[in-house]
């Protein structure tokens, strides 16, 4: 119907299928990375959907995903760190690529929104998304060294 929804469909189909494949196969280390990248792949899709439906109120979903997605990854990084020890899961190339896609989507949606409070909100979401994603990747690749009992 419009380009925004088409872009969201592509992002959802590609990112969702890749994340699903990554999280169901392979060693635990790779599955955790895929779980982390789910957030980064689907949050831009939510932003595109909000723009495509013409409903600024839907942006709250992207805000919460950008906040809580990294928290979910930290849960696994913390409570699975014994399984992850030895082979540090890191896919920095992929992480930066997905973060770049997120940044591009945020900038394009910002340009479509025009200056104002809504644009600042989008920028806050972008900062939370990319920052959270990088920190979660950092946590997976050895953020919890000395966690034993706690």
């Amino acid at each position, binding site marked *: 119907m419009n380009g925004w929804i088409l872009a969201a469909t592509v992002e959802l189909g590609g990112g969702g299928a890749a994340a699903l494949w990554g999280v169901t196969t392979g060693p635990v280390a790779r599955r955790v990375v895929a779980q982390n990248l789910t957030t980064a792949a689907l949050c831009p899709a939510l932003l595109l959907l909000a723009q495509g439906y013409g409903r600024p*109120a*839907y942006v*709250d*979903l992207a*805000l*919460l995903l950008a*906040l*809580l997605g*990294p*928290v979910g990854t*930290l*849960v696994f990084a*913390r409570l699975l760190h014994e399984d992850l020890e030895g082979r540090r899961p890191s896919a920095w190339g992929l992480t930066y690529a997905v973060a770049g896609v997120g940044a591009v989507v945020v900038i394009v949606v910002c340009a479509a929104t025009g200056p104002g409070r809504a644009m600042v909100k989008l920028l806050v979401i972008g900062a*939370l998304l990319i*920052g*959270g994603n990088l*920190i979660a990747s*950092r*946590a997976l690749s*050895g*953020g*919890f*060294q*000395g*966690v*034993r*009992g*706690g």
Partner: protein
Amino acid sequence: MSRRLRLWLLAVGGAGLAALLAAACLDLPGFGGRAHPYGTRAVRASLARHTANTVASVNFDQRAYDTLGEMSILFAAVLGCVVLLRQARDEHRERPRPAEVARPVRRYALLVVPVALVCGLYVIAHGQLSPGGGFQGGVVAATALHLLYLGADYRALERVRPLGTFETVDALSVCAYLVLGLAGVLAATAFLANTLLPYGTFDTLSSGGTVPLLNAAVGIEVASAVVVLLANFLDQAVEIEEGNGG
């Protein structure tokens, strides 16, 4: 019953159920149809009472009694968890060793905890205007607190989380919901009827009569319930050990 027999029984029952479900699906009104009689009436009632978010209006005004039931299920489930996970006589507590978390992760946690709390409060407060409400915002606000466990260690979380207070607040907010309902009776209408307060200006924080108040009560209840719930699980997973201790 052997494992094989059980699988066969499951296959037969599953096939029967699948056939029935498929037949039922084919008889349902088509996906995306135009006729939604209840929806149309709910939207009209919500607009008449100046509530911008119809879903919140259904939850806290038109079907507020139902939400009272949901709240009591939530309360009972948390109560059950507290009883099941309490420290038994043959168990003791052991202080977990402090964790060493990488500095960027710790700083991220410290920065995001207040941001997530404010976002949770925003979702609760704007429940009757934009998507959101007490149920969602309460979970977000409670999850925010647990970033302190994930980004630092359990002792840091315990310092900022007075568990007794959260248990009391949980009970008090359930009472607040009931009292707001009874206030409707005292105002000579009906239990949980939205006739107590003026409906206010459409699309502002004070619109919708008692909807924002009930919404806030649910938000506080859900937030403290989740905190109490996770506290019990964390105690079990981190502190409580078997045996009476040395």
